[in-house]
């Protein structure tokens, strides 16, 4: 495996609920390699978003630490960008200005070059002056991905980024994400509760138990991209994941 990039060491998180502590995460140990694509899969409410928020520096763990490149996470950092479950782009700014958000310190010619390239990469050329309100859900999510990629982050945290999209758009966004991941070699932690999504994207799927979230198992997906969704290997992994989640696959 490649050099460890994001390392969770005994991470636990308790929230307060009606005066009593509510254990949301318990002793999460996980090492994500540099350039690796990892999916965090688990039932709703098991603490996936919480874990990602801790890694992103938006929340502090109750116990344990998260290290990136060996340094403990102290707070948010523009080198590690979050793509939110609900749209995090600014509705008051045009597509162009949204994508340029993280480039404020660069010269305007540099900004121009990078924003133009990134917008083209996510297929939004021609929409530079458009406001998010006038975009479809998929396009908004592309803007958010572009805003993140524009700063050339070394880690992307994605919290069910495609959850609000229709299934066709979701499929195409996934293959675009794989394309981008391959060309950028960025480390991706991708939260989902969709078994198929995790098998289509991840090199390793980290399966969480019900709350309090613990790692139930880590399932490698050794399939080449583009992945054949009808292959027997795919089916086996799927069965295994459903088994770990405690639901039977057949309905």
């Amino acid at each position: 495996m490649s050099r460890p990039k994001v390392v969770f060491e005994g991470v636990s998180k308790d929230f307060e609920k009606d005066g009593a502590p509510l254990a949301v995460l318990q002793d999460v140990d996980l090492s994500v390699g540099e350039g690796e694509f990892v999916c965090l899969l688990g039932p709703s409410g098991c603490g996936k978003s919480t874990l990602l928020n801790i890694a992103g520096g938006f929340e502090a763990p109750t116990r344990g630490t998260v290290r990136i490149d060996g340094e403990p996470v102290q707070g948010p950092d523009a080198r590690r960008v979050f793509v939110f479950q609900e749209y995090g782009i600014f509705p008051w700014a045009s597509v162009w200005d949204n994508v340029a958000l993280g480039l404020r310190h660069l010269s305007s010619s540099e900004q121009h070059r990078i924003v133009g390239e990134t917008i083209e990469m996510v297929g939004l050329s021609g929409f530079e002056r458009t406001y998010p309100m006038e975009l479809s859900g998929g396009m908004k999510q592309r803007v958010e991905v572009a805003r993140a990629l524009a700063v050339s982050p070394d880690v992307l945290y994605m919290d069910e980024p495609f959850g609000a999209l229709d299934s066709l758009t979701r499929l195409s966004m996934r293959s675009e994400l794989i394309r981008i991941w391959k060309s950028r070699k960025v480390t991706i932690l991708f939260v989902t509760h969709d078994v198929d999504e995790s098998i289509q994207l991840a090199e390793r799927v980290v399966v969480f138990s019900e709350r309090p979230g613990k790692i139930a198992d880590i399932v490698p997906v050794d399939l080449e991209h583009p992945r054949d969704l009808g292959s027997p290997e795919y089916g086996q992994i799927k069965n295994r994941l459903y088994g770990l989640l405690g639901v039977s696959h057949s309905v």
Partner: protein
Amino acid sequence: MKVLSPVAFGLLLTALWWLACGVKGDEIMPTPLDTLYGFVELVESQRLWGDIVASLFRVTWGFLLAAGVGIPLGLVVGWSNRVSVAVNPTIQGLRPISPIAWIPLAIYWFGIGDGAGIFLIFVASFFPITVGTMAAVRGISLVHQRSARNFGVRGLDLFRRVLLPAAMPQIITSLRIALGVAWLVVVAAEMVGMDSGLGYLIMDARNAGARYDLIVATMFVIGAIGIVLDVLIRKLERFDEVRWGYENR
């Protein structure tokens, strides 16, 4: 039918008004026709324009000053808990005091004239604007705050790129409320403590021979200008930067 009904309703009310004048049969209450003649008289006397300008002048400057102070203050108080703890109790304590109650002090400080009028309009618009801006900043969604932190947006940049634009739709709503209040207050202030303006025109018409036709005509003028002001300020809601804030509401 849809276009006609507001007109029909207005005509119905006018007819009732006329009928009521006939039934009561006194000399004081003007009929719609008396009012129309009163309006013509006001227009011909040239006096109306001067009073309209005087009222609008006070409202414009008082309102702009209030926006100039209230929006930045509201942004800071809304964003910073430390500032809020110090400043908010004073704001909340002064807010329930009717702007009308300030009239004696205003005249004492500024004398009869525009200064006192502008001050009163400032007081009347300042609180809705400041409190509205504060609430807007406090309501900024967590994902937007986190986006800003993730990309290291802070200091003045934070105000310019995130807090102000995020709060803008609600700020515009509070400006609209404030302008409405300002227009109510200017008339009251002019009735009590000024010697020009539409409010003064009303008092003057009453004192100089109980000219209720002129009074009611002036009331219509006040209403019409109020509508125009509201229409004008609502134009702010159309800008691309704020339209998102009025969707699905």
